[in-house]
């Protein structure tokens, strides 16, 4: 029986710095000016339509070209207060850049994401006078539960409009997914917290950390203290594999692995020599690539359907492959193989589509592994809402809202991944928070929002 090869510190110290530094270095001024010139300044620009937050992309790029970084940042952050993080993590290849008209003849869109990053970070490095100031105080108080992208955007939108916001989160740091759920190389340089510092600098937002709804506070309690509540709870639950999962070292959730990497030094994070990641989304890619970057020799992402079903974008798939990750499709987990409490590998059944249904072909195979990471999706923990006191109507396991993000409970709004609908993208969560803030403001002040 082999002992599982699980350890930290597989690499030389300098390798960690290189592997977990900025995966895609930012544009310098010269590069940004040249790239900005490629923008055609389209009418009713398709990129802007494709952006869930509707950033006026032609304008911000034009402003970069005119050496007006502050104006560019203003155009971005007005539409998307988390424009800096979105510039780093948005799957632009399926959003704005996919819509870029340059694709038609060149298959090379304007690098909108990189330009957005240039503008926002250039501004944050040299902010000058605040871009946004608060409207006169309204005397209204709003509790925002969950300090991820949706909650942060909601808090900023509400604070701008003169409301006092308490930003509640169960974790020890603000940021939610931005702080705990993204690959380290996407947010190098402590960007998540720098962005939060900028966001909070508007004033009127009081963080309340280590506070879990359902445990430390209840929804009814919040409703008695606040004029409105926004729930941006995210998806706290991780799907199980649906097979027996023995308690063995090395079998863990990908989100937990990613969070550990973000909250500690990569050199101390344990990784197997051979790693299997089960799942086909962005989380699976982030976990698989980072396993390789920690020094794992063999990393295999296994997905139960065909390549076209992978929710990781083509760009992300290439990124994984470039980093030495093998992507294996058409296989579903059958059994965790362990002996004497030591993980040995994963057994899979190969699958195929028959009459539109996924069925086993009858073949099986085993991949030897020292570490198996589960990344087959996250779920809304309905008990959070239930424990909160009032029964919020759900649909498909997530909170149901109307177009203005109002839930079934009066004075309670919800947005982000915990809300039904959408693609679970950071940028969509921001849009939810932004629009919920408009709706809350309208409700609190009796002014039509717009």
């Amino acid at each position, binding site marked *: 029986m082999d002992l599982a090869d699980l350890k930290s510190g597989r690499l030389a110290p300098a390798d960690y710095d290189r592997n977990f530094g900025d995966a895609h270095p930012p544009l310098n001024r010269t590069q940004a000016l040249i790239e900005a*010139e490629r923008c055609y300044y*389209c*009418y*009713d*620009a*398709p990129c802007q339509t494709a952006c869930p937050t509707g950033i006026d992309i032609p304008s911000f790029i034009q402003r970069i070209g005119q050496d007006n970084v502050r104006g560019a940042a203003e155009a971005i952050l007005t539409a998307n207060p988390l424009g800096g993080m979105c510039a780093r993590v948005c799957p632009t290849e399926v959003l704005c850049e996919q819509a870029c*008209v340059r694709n038609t*003849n060149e298959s090379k869109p304007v690098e909108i994401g990189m330009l957005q990053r240039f503008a926002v970070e250039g501004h944050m490095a040299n902010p000058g006078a605040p871009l946004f100031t608060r409207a006169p105080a309204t005397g209204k108080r709003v509790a925002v539960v969950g300090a991820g992208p949706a909650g942060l955007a909601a808090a900023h939108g509400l604070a701008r409009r003169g409301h006092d916001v308490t930003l509640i989160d169960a974790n020890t740091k603000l940021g939610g997914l931005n702080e705990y759920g993204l690959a380290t190389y996407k947010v190098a340089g402590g960007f998540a917290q720098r962005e939060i510092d900028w966001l909070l600098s508007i004033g009127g937002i009081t963080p309340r950390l280590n506070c879990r709804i359902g445990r430390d506070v209840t929804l009814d309690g919040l409703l008695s203290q606040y004029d409105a509540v926004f729930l941006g709870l995210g998806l706290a639950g991780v799907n199980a594999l649906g097979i027996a999962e023995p308690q063995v070292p090395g079998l863990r959730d990908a989100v937990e692995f990613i969070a550990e990497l973000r909250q500690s030094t990569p050199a101390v994070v344990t990784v197997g020599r051979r790693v299997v990641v089960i799942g086909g989304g962005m989380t699976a890619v982030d976990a698989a690539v980072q396993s390789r970057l920690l020094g794992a020799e063999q990393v295999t992402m296994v997905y139960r359907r065909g390549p076209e079903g992978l929710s990781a974008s083509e760009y992300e798939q290439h990124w994984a492959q470039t980093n030495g990750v093998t992507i294996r499709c058409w296989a579903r987990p059958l059994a965790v193989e362990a002996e004497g409490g030591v993980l040995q590998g994963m057994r899979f059944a190969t699958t195929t589509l028959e009459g539109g249904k996924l069925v086993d072909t009858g073949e099986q195979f085993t991949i030897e592994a020292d570490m198996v990471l589960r990344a087959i999706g996250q779920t809304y923990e309905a008990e959070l809402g239930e424990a909160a006191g009032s029964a919020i109507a759900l649909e498909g396991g997530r909170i149901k809202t109307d177009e203005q993000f109002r839930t079934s409970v009066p004075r309670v709004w919800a947005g982000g991944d915990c809300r039904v609908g959408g693609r679970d993208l950071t940028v969509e969560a921001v849009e939810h928070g932004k629009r919920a803030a408009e709706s809350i403001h309208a409700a609190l002040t009796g002014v039509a929002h717009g």
Partner: protein
Amino acid sequence: MADLSTNFLGIKSPNPFWLASAPPTDKEVNVRRAFEAGWGGVVWKTLGEDPPVVNVNGPRYATLWSQDRRVIGFNNIELISDRPLQTNLDEIRRVKRDFPDRAMIVSLMVPVNEESWKSILARVADTGADGVELNFGCPHGMSERGMGSAVGQVPEYIQQVTEWCKKHTKMPVIVKLTPNITDVRFPARAAKAGGADAVSLINTINSVMGVDLDTMIMSPSTDGQGSHGGYCGQAVKPIALNMVAEIARDAATAGLPISGIGGITTWRDAAEFIAMGCGTVQVCTAAMVYGFKIVQDMCSGLSNFMDEKGYTSLADFQGRAVPTVKNWNQLNLNHVDKAVINQDSCIQCGRCHIVCEDTSHQAIWATKDGKRHFHVNDAECVGCNLCVSICPVPGTITMRTLQPGETDARTGRVIDGSYQNWTTHSNNPMSSGCA
């Protein structure tokens, strides 16, 4: 293979590309490098009387750039040669001896008196140079001293100095004209009246390149002050081409040989100047941007173009475009063009729509059946060509001429193929057909 050689006023050169009188032709070392690179001729940087002028030791050049630092326009405040006259003459003699097949023209600028011109012409002739170019164009510095464009702006002075030069030399005399005037035909006519063998144009255009917004000092500046300079480079080409055309089609100067100057950067620019009547072309900024090797690319392009079109010599197309240049009142008002958008190559940027909608005739629709789709509304299109001009994809928007029998959807008039210009149009109060 097409023959690129030229015979301009009896001065032969292996190709029509001459370096204009400017910093690149100031010294023997530069001119030798130019000839080695393949330039057909040079106009040596302007010589004046001793003692030599003194140049500033701060920036002499400033630039208009695109965002990726392509040079669009360029200006300079450099004066004429700041080296002793004899040094230049000795160098001219040596270089001409070593490159007998290249054109060696010497640019001159001395005060407006006959003795000065007579004296310098004799010394230039002694070098074996092929001809002289009278610098009546330099717009900065020298003009303050009554030379350069100060002469070129007064037709009587042009004629007078040209006459002196023709009287005192057997070398061909080319008069270089300034664009800093209201109507270039008057100085050109004066040059011809004075006996000039040819004109060359344009010299540079008065310009201030910009203002440094941190210091609030104009640019370029020396020690906190600047002075207007001469503007050149690609941006000035259309201005130069118009002035060449005006001289080429003016009855008083038609047939006067022209050496074309102004923003010539590619073989295409050169071919256009030749089609507009020029016998040679002069280049400066392109060389100052790319170095002398650029002449090889220009020759290659021009040669391939001529082969493709079946032109065996430059004479085959020289001046071919001149008859197409008319006064506006000769244009056919019965002719109707409409824009057509090729949907197969349209990339849907929508710029044609928004510029037509905002600034022209509201003739391009942005949607069709509720979808993004750009197409022309013939009932509003006046054929202005704005959409063609701003479309980023070449050949995607073109103009189609309505044929006889077709109806102009904008006016309801049936095209009959007739010609009518403003002079005979019923709306013209001065026309003969006016009631």
